[in-house]
């Protein structure tokens, strides 16, 4: 009896010692997360107050109204769908001359596809945002003095409140996005007032330079929206009123393209604020907001995975430019053509193949991924980061090494040496990325019932 008791006690002691030997995993994980929060200075995103003020209502109308497009057949909203995380679900976007939404979108005539994947719009008013577009062609140079770099260079009008407002005036003057081309007509399927209308936003086949072309298109957009003189259509009068409500100190004749951009940006700031993710709740002190898998994923994300080297800050982007070995894109003829990314903006050799780090909030919804939309799921997207050279050869049908030598040599050293993550670690990082998903505003708060022009809103 005594012998049995002694043996039992020893067994219990051994069990106790062995269990405590590995340490309490949960307390270790929590301690590590606290270290990460402190080291990376992580705080939850502040919650934006939703207020449907006159500027919001004007911005909303402009965002959803196809009247801003040359052929009156596409709005900003077409390529920024809530259902697809404010992207469009396509590898590369289909601009004017398209029909349908999301994965159903297709060209109604033979047109050139936009070469890049549509970027989301979450939280772009955040101070961390310093650049827009994959190649950063709109950048913040001095946020306090509101100095921006853009394709208009020194000709950028004054009065923009932030870079988001500057960004919003460029897709409307890009031919394969919203502008269309000289001599085109709007589709026959539109309401009578808008069908078979000449694309009056492009007044000439050629312009002396790019700045002149953009400025002309901007003038024409304001002209179309507000009318030139006292004579105006009913919907133009509605827009005049909307602008005057949003900018009480201005008459419709004083309205500038900056005012239009500011209104769109104001709408986007309030409508597309992602703030209540499980990760934000955890950062706010709710330790039960995330699962053990998410916690493990966060540790890998900020540590071994080196993800946070570039996907850093409140929006998980450094808004800087990196070559991560995404080879190129494929044109309509199926040819592989190089997309030099940042180089198109700077013309510096070192910027070839570099693209702006995409933010990661709501990333689960915004597939496909990368500038060419060449990866449809997050696991594959992660894998391409782990060993960029290995995946470069996957592009060509014959299996040959597709990446050019100078691209290989300029792959970000952050990804070299390759990152060894186990299948379990990749799964936990994906869990962490899922925890960045936010509830968006209700569709009823975002989508108007109609727009002043009377053109149809297609957005569900």
């Amino acid at each position: 009896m005594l012998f049995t008791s002694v043996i039992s006690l020893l067994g219990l002691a051994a069990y106790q010692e062995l269990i405590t030997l590995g340490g309490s995993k949960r307390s270790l994980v929590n301690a590590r997360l606290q270290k990460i929060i402190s080291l990376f200075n992580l705080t939850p995103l502040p919650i934006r107050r939703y207020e449907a003020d006159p500027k919001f209502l004007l911005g909303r109308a402009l965002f959803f109204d196809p009247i801003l497009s040359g052929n009156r057949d596409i709005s900003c909203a077409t390529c920024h769908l809530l259902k697809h995380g404010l992207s469009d679900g396509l590898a590369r976007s289909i601009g004017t001359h398209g029909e349908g939404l999301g994965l159903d979108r297709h060209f109604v005539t033979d047109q050139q596809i936009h070469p890049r994947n549509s970027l989301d719009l979450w939280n772009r008013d955040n101070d961390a945002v310093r650049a827009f577009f994959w190649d950063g062609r709109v950048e913040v140079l001095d946020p306090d003095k509101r100095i921006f770099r853009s394709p208009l260079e020194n000709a950028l009008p004054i009065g923009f409140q932030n870079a988001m407002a500057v960004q919003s005036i460029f897709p409307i003057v890009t031919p394969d996005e919203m502008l269309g081309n000289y001599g085109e007509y709007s589709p026959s399927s539109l309401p009578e007032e808008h069908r078979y209308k000449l694309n009056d936003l492009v007044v000439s086949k050629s312009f002396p330079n790019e700045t002149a072309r953009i400025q002309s298109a901007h003038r024409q957009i304001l002209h179309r929206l507000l009318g030139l003189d006292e004579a105006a259509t009913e919907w133009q009068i509605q827009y005049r009123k909307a602008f005057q409500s949003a900018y009480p100190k201005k008459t419709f004749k004083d309205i500038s393209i900056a005012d239009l951009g500011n209104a769109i940006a104001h709408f986007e700031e309030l409508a597309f604020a992602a703030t209540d993710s499980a990760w934000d709740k955890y950062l706010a002190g709710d330790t039960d907001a995330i699962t053990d898998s998410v916690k493990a994923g966060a540790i890998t994300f900020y540590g071994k995975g080196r993800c946070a080297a570039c996907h850093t800050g409140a929006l998980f982007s450094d808004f800087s430019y990196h070559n991560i070995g995404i080879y190129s894109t494929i044109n309509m003829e199926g040819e592989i053509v190089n997309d030099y990314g940042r180089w198109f903006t700077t013309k510096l050799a070192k910027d070839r193949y570099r693209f702006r780090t995409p933010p990661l909030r709501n990333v689960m919804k915004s597939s496909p991924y990368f500038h060419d939309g060449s990866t449809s799921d997050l696991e594959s997207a992660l894998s391409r980061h782990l060993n960029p050279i290995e995946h470069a050869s996957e592009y060509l049908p014959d299996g040959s090494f597709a990446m050019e030598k100078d691209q290989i040599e300029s792959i970000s050293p952050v990804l070299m040496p390759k990152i060894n993550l186990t299948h379990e670690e990749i799964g936990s990082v994906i869990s962490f990325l899922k925890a960045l998903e936010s509830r968006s505003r209700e569709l009823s708060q975002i989508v108007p019932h109609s727009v002043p022009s009377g053109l149809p809103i297609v957005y569900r």
Partner: protein
Amino acid sequence: MKAQWLINGAYIVLGMLLFSAYEHGISWLGMLVYQNDLEGRLIACQLATKHAYRFANIELASPLKEEVEKTSIIDLLTCDDYQTLRNKLLALGVSETRLKIIEADAFRLEPELTAQSGEYLPSKQSW
């Protein structure tokens, strides 16, 4: 009386034997349960150290360099995990020699730790 002494002596001897068996058994059990974990933590620590050293010696622009350094700091915490487990195994009676043999074998499990230096080195371009 003498018989009682003998019985007590036998209990003491039995106790000593049990204690000795416990001490040996617990270190044996510890290694049985935690050897893989120890190897994993060692490899993770060695890789973290190797990468941290490499990034410390690559010319990276600010703020990328600072951000990479932060990820290295977090990654290097795996070395704390490894050292903690190692110390506990030593405290349980696992010999230093045995741990070193296991550690030497563990290096062979990770190809990157046995790769020639210079392999996968990035270009000298400034970042």
